[in-house]
Each structure stands twice: as C-alpha cells, then as structure tokens.
C-alpha cells in the first residue's frame, strides 16, 4: 500500500445481510486501502451510525431485515449531509425511485457488482468530499440536529 500522508484510510460502513459475500467484499476493499466496518442488517447499521466515528462512506444493500438501505442512507445523511452513499442492489429501479430526494444522489450499483469499478468510485468519492470539506471549514463533521430514525 502506498503511503497516504495526511489522510487516514477512509472508513467504509458496509451494510449487507448476505454475510459471506459482505465479508469477502470487505476483504477486497481492505486490500484496496479502505478500513471497513460491517453491519449485517439495517438496524445494526443505524445503531453503528449513532456512534462515532461517523464513517466516510456508506455502502449498503437495499433489501435487508429491520431497515432497508434507503432508510439507513437517510439516517446516515441526517448525521452527515454530504456522506457519500453507495447502494448495491438487485432492484436498481426501485432504489432510484425510493432514493429520490437524496442530495447528493446515492450511487446505485446493480448486482452483480463490477468490483473494480466500485472500488475506483469509492476512492474518488472520498477524495471529492475531503477536498470540498477542506475548502469549506474544518468542522464539517459536526453533528447536525438530533436525528430521528426513519422507519423502513
């Protein structure tokens, strides 16, 4: 791994109830220089998001027990309005419809996911956010108003 001077390795929260596949994806991402935390359903994901540190990227499945990927995404955005969102799904049209109103838009990848394309996009998304955050103000990660969980 090449040295990444000032910025710490970006933290991905990966949410997927298909544990075997999720672990493998986490491993591939770690190989590519990300830190990955895994949540195996929507409720775990929301519980994890309520704690710090807030992840740099949310990568989530759509159909999961307790809370779907869009609900998790909206919750995450209530904590960090510019959080990069990636939804990996077998239902891209449905996700696009439900995810309307998310600004910036969630990036939707249709399963089976092209891993190298995904990895590249994840990398560029954190770079885009950190550079714009650096330009804006140092306290970009300050929590917003008390978030209310959105039912699935």
């Amino acid at each position, binding site marked *: 791994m090449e040295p990444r001077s000032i910025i710490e390795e970006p933290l991905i929260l990966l949410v997927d109830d298909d544990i075997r596949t999720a672990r493998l994806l986490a491993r591939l991402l770690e190989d590519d220089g990300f830190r990955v935390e895994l949540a195996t359903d929507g409720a775990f994901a929301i519980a994890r998001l309520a704690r710090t540190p807030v992840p740099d990227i949310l990568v989530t499945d759509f159909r999961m027990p307790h809370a779907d990927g869009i609900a998790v995404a909206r919750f995450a955005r209530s904590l960090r309005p510019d959080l990069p969102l990636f939804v990996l799904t077998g239902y891209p049209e449905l996700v696009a419809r439900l995810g309307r109103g998310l600004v910036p838009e969630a990036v939707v990848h249709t399963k*089976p996911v092209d891993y190298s394309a995904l990895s590249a996009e994840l990398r560029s998304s954190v770079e885009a956010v950190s550079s714009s955050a650096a330009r804006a103000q140092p306290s970009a990660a300050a929590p917003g108003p008390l978030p209310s969980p959105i039912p699935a």
Partner: protein
Amino acid sequence: MIGSRAVPAHETLFDEIKRYVRFEDEDAGWLAAFRAHAAPHFPRIADEFYDRIREHEGAHEVFTGEEQVERLKRSLVRWMTRICTGPYDGAYFDETAKIGRIHVRVGLPQRYMFTAMTLIRLAFYEIAQGALGAEAIPVRSAVSKVLDLELAIMLETYRDDFLARTQRAERLDREEVGRTLARTEHRYKSAVELARVLVVGLDAHAVVRLFNREAERITGLGREDILGMPFVEMLLPEEIRADHGALVEDVAAGRRAGADLLESSLRTRAGKIRDVRWQLAYAPSAADDEVVLFAIGQDTTDENALAARVRQSEKLAAVGTLAAGLAHEIRNPLNGAQLHVTFLERGLARAGMNDPDTVEAIQVVRDEIRRLSELVSEFLDFARPRPLVVKPTSVVSLCERAARVAMASDGDGAGAHAEVKVDLPSTDMVLDLDPARIEQVLLNLLRNAMEAAGSAGGGTVTLRARRKPRHVLLEVEDDGPGVASPDAPIFDPFYSTKPDGTGLGLAIAHRIITDHDGTIDFQSRPGKTLFRVTLPIRLSG
C-alpha cells in the same frame, strides 16, 4: 211588462242573445239619449281604459307601442259611439265579432276582456247618474244589456278560435302519424341497409333473398350477383360447406331448430376468408320465396386477431409478475459469485499463478455470470417494463440511427456480415412515441435479420418506413433462410431458435409495440422474411 215573445223559427245567434237579455227598441232609444251626454267623456274613458290595462302585464303585453295605443284609443271611442248608436243588426254583430277576433289574434286573455268591460260599465253608470237623474235607471239597464251583448259576441269568437285550433291540431296529428309511418319504414330500411352488421335473408331453399349493404361490403359481392343464388355454394368456404352448409340448409327448410349463434366464415369475391359470427332467426312462412331465415352477422376477423393479441399480452403479464421477483433475487447469488471470482483472480495473481487453463476457466465463469446477469436484466425489462416516455419523434432519424447502431455492433455475432439498406420516405414523419424503446425494437429486429441474412454469408437487410393514412409502417426484411415454422410462437417469451438467444428479443419488441397501440407481425419464406410494425398516427388537436 217584459212578457214572453214567440220564438222565431229562424233566429240568428245575435237575435237569440238579444232576446235573452230582453234588449228592446226602447233600450236602443235610452242608449241614444245617453250618448248625447256621454260622448264628450269618451276620450277620457279611453285614456283611463288603457292606463288601467298598462298596470297589468298580461294585458299590456299585447301592445306594440304608443302609436298603437293611440290608435286603439280612437277605436275605443268609435266603439263606445257605436254601442250607443246601433243599429243592432247583423252588421253590428259582425263588427263586434271582428273586434273579438282581433283580441283572439293578439292573444288577449279573456279575463282582461271581462274586467275591462267593468271599467266601461262603471264609467257609463257614473255619467248616467250625473247627467240623467231619474232616467239613469233605464239607461243603466240598457248599458248593462248592450255591454253583455258585446261580451257574449266576443266570447263566441274565442270559442270559434278554440275549435279552429283543435281542428288544426287534429289535422297536424293526422299528418304527423302519416309522416311517422313513412319515417318508420324508412328507418327500418335504413337500419338494415346502413347497419354495420351483415343482414342476409334466406328462403326455405337457402336461396339468398335479402343482402344488405354491409354484406355487400364485406363479401365484395353485389346484390345482383347474389340474390336468387344458393347461399351455401356462393358464400361458404369449401371446407365448411358440409358442416355449416348443411346446418344452414336444414334450419332454412325448418328441418332443424336453428342454433342461435353460429361462428362461421364467408368467402369473399376475392377468395379471402372472413370470420363471421351469425345470429340466426327463423320465421316460418307459407310463401315459397319468402325470407324464412334471417342471419345477422358480425365480421369478427379483426376482433379475433385482437383477441389473440390480448391473450398474448395477458400471458406475458402473468409470466412477468411471477418471474420478476425471482429474477431480482437471482442477482444476489450472482453478486456473490462475481465477487468470489474477483477474489480468486487476485489470489492467483498474488500467488503468481498464470496457468492459461486456470485463467481461462476463471474467464468462463466471469462470462457466464455476465450472461446470466444480462438475461436477468433483459427479462426484467420485459416483465416489468418501464412506462413509456413518449415525445414527438422523427421516424426517419430514428430509423437511420437504429440502422447505424446495428451496423456498428455487427461483427459480435458469428459470421454476421449482412449489408443493411435503409429505404425511407423523403418526407419525414413525426410520431408521439418512446424513441429509446422503438429503437430497441428496431435493433432487435435488425440484429435478428442480420444474423439470419448473414448466416448464409453476406445477405441483405432492408429497413423500410412508409406513411399510411392512419399509421406508419416500419418493415425489416431479410433474404435469409426464413423462419423455420411460420406458425411458431416467435413472439412468446423464451421461444428462441438461436443457440445462445434469450428468447426475449421479439417478446420485448411485441410488448413495446403493443404498448404503443401498434401491431407487429411477420411473413416468412426462404429468401424473404418480413417483420412489419405499425404505429398509429394520432391526430391530435
């Protein structure tokens, strides 16, 4: 004393009512005497008379203007003079009757005639009282009589008018009945002639005796061709003569109770077969050449074709709903497989393993996953189509683009090197359609055609567009070997003749065209296969 008088043998109406009120010569004398005093008051009475009328809308309505009122006042003065002067003869009666008829003509309600008379009566009494003292009593009596005579005569004219009106109404009624009968007959004829159903009448020998315009239109046979000819030989296709022909002949002859409904067909003059749903009505008759069997038919040829299309759509919808959920779920294991392949590739690369067989094996798995994934996407596209995004679209540029794209992607397929020609009209046609989806249809058709034409090596594919009065016709023609079996359900999902086809291309095309309210069909023989798409031209505004 007033006494009784003999009733004359021939008495006029006027004489009779004069006798009733006992209007005598001395009454005439009293009136003449009264007139000498009253005449100067007549203009004033006339003014008051018409002022009073104006207070009542129903009476006032009959006036047309001031000028007329002034004229009427002068008439009233003349009338007052006349009733005081006489002579009370036939001419007098006619004159009063004339006034009455004018009242009738202008539509003066009778009640105003009566009430207005009271005004005259009171005015005259007042004058008599003032001017004549003791003589007022016989004058009043004479005035009373003459005014009642006036009323009686005028009422007669109302009665005459009523009778005349009744007679006129009766005459009109009679004329109306006559006209109605004629109209009814005309309507029945028109109903038979103009109805959009075939009406055929057969006599007991199943000879055609009645053949309406729609029957002429559908069969292409004129009445002069068909009347007097045997129905079965003239109109039934040979295959059904034994069956339906015998049935019709038996029903016409009264040998068999008629089946009410008969799904049959007709052979037209041009030899085409039209499906007809007949409704048979048997009405026995003694006369030999009388129509006994009425056959009311509906041309169901197009209806049947439509029903077939509807069945196809319904089938697709059912398949779609059932399988769409499954297709979505296939994506999850595919995702797992694909990520594991990626992992495997990396592991091998890291371990420095580059055995070509292993590398190829991994590539095969990757390709298979991709193929499956494409199939799922294509299937979902078919099963859960997105709503059309319709906009005015140039058909010519759409065709040009589709041809370009098809040619550019040529070469993927094995040995597909067909030439694509476009044959487009010089005048563009702009239709409301979903350009992306129609392009998809054209691409599907073009790629099929190119594969078919190219299979023999270097065939030709033609994309043609034509404007018809009510639709635009798009055709894709190839000179390949043709569809193996023309009856094959090629628009059904998963029907495919190609080893690596998904069997969805034409099903999707069918779906998209149907969604556009268009039609798609094909003709095929070795050397010429033609897919024909029609898209309706909507005349908006």
